[in-house]
């Protein structure tokens, strides 16, 4: 495949992600606007943070006077999955320059990671990567910009109603996970109850961090064979790489003997 074909294939496959990112981006911008963020700050956060739950968390924390270390710890834990995803994505490349790694790594998200790492081996290339990851990033930023514009001319009831969109998205993520594994459902419900109780006694920001970490520790203790762990199985990626190396070595041996 040529460079442009690879790029266009990546672009085409990213279309569902774009369809998802633009409305969520709009909802994020409306929610941030309602919480006092300026249009410039809203778009800047989408460019620099590029993380749905992270940005939602930042907006929720805004104005709560949460101490910086607590805020940072919560954000690290919440976004630590990118560390794992980035490891997987860049394991797919055998050779990639320092500059490309520096620029490309910012673009790793849950959805693009899932699409890219499950793609056919022969497609893994720089143009294919750019077709997916850059497109999704632009869609996310475009959504935020549209949200900023929309909130200035949409009827007030509609912008108010859009404030619930991100919550609905997260519910749509939680419910299937709970349906798939009853123990996860119990954990989700327990977390919701704990956080709702804490909310009335301590600061909202502290409540979120405490319930998140405490319930994740409980979950990790009791849920031992949940299906999501193999979502990013580094060992299998390593095995694949080794097998490929073996194949290449065999091929070169064959060629030499011929």
């Amino acid at each position: 495949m040529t460079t442009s074909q690879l790029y266009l294939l990546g672009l085409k496959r990213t279309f569902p992600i774009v369809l998802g990112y633009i409305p969520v981006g709009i909802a994020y911008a409306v929610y941030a606007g309602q919480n006092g963020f300026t249009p410039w700050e809203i778009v800047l956060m989408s460019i620099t943070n590029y993380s749905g739950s992270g940005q939602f968390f930042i907006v929720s924390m805004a104005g709560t006077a949460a101490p910086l270390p607590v805020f940072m710890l919560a954000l690290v834990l919440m976004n630590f999955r990118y560390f794992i995803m980035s490891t997987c994505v860049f394991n797919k490349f055998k050779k990639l320059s320092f500059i490309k790694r520096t620029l490309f790594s910012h673009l790793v998200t849950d959805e693009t990671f899932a699409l890219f790492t499950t793609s056919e081996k022969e497609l893994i290339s720089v143009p294919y990567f750019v077709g997916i990851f850059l497109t999704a990033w632009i869609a996310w930023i475009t959504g935020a910009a549209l949200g900023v514009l929309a909130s200035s001319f949409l009827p007030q009831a509609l912008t108010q109603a859009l404030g619930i969109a991100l919550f609905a998205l997260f519910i749509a993520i939680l419910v299937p996970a709970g349906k798939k594994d009853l123990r996860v459902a119990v954990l989700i419900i327990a977390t919701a109850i704990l956080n709702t109780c804490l909310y009335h006694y301590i600061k909202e920001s502290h409540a979120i961090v405490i319930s998140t970490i405490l319930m994740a520790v409980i979950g990790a203790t009791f849920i031992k064979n949940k299906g999501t762990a193999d979502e990013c199985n580094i060992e299998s990626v390593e095995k694949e790489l080794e097998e490929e190396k073996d194949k290449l070595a065999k091929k070169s041996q064959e060629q030499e003997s011929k």
Partner: protein
Amino acid sequence: MDSNNYLTMIMVGFLVTYPLRLVPALFFSKLKLNAFFQRFLDIIPYTAITALVFPGIFYCIEGNDYVAYAGAAIAIISALLKASLSVTIVCTVIVVYLLLII
């Protein structure tokens, strides 16, 4: 510095999130995590999202908590009925909008 400065929060967000993506891209060809820590990391998105949604969703429509309750119910019901992400979001927003204008 505290979280009342929005621009600071955005920059801190970037300074926390970007290295998490950059470090493995530059340095890690393999990564082995302790099994408990791996499970902890697998489960944390769910607990974090739950804590962000509850009870926040009940107060997200300013001055109209009952509409927010109805919205939460619609979102949960449509997700239980296996509606896709976008259908769940659109249904919820439309119902909340209609309740706000009637």
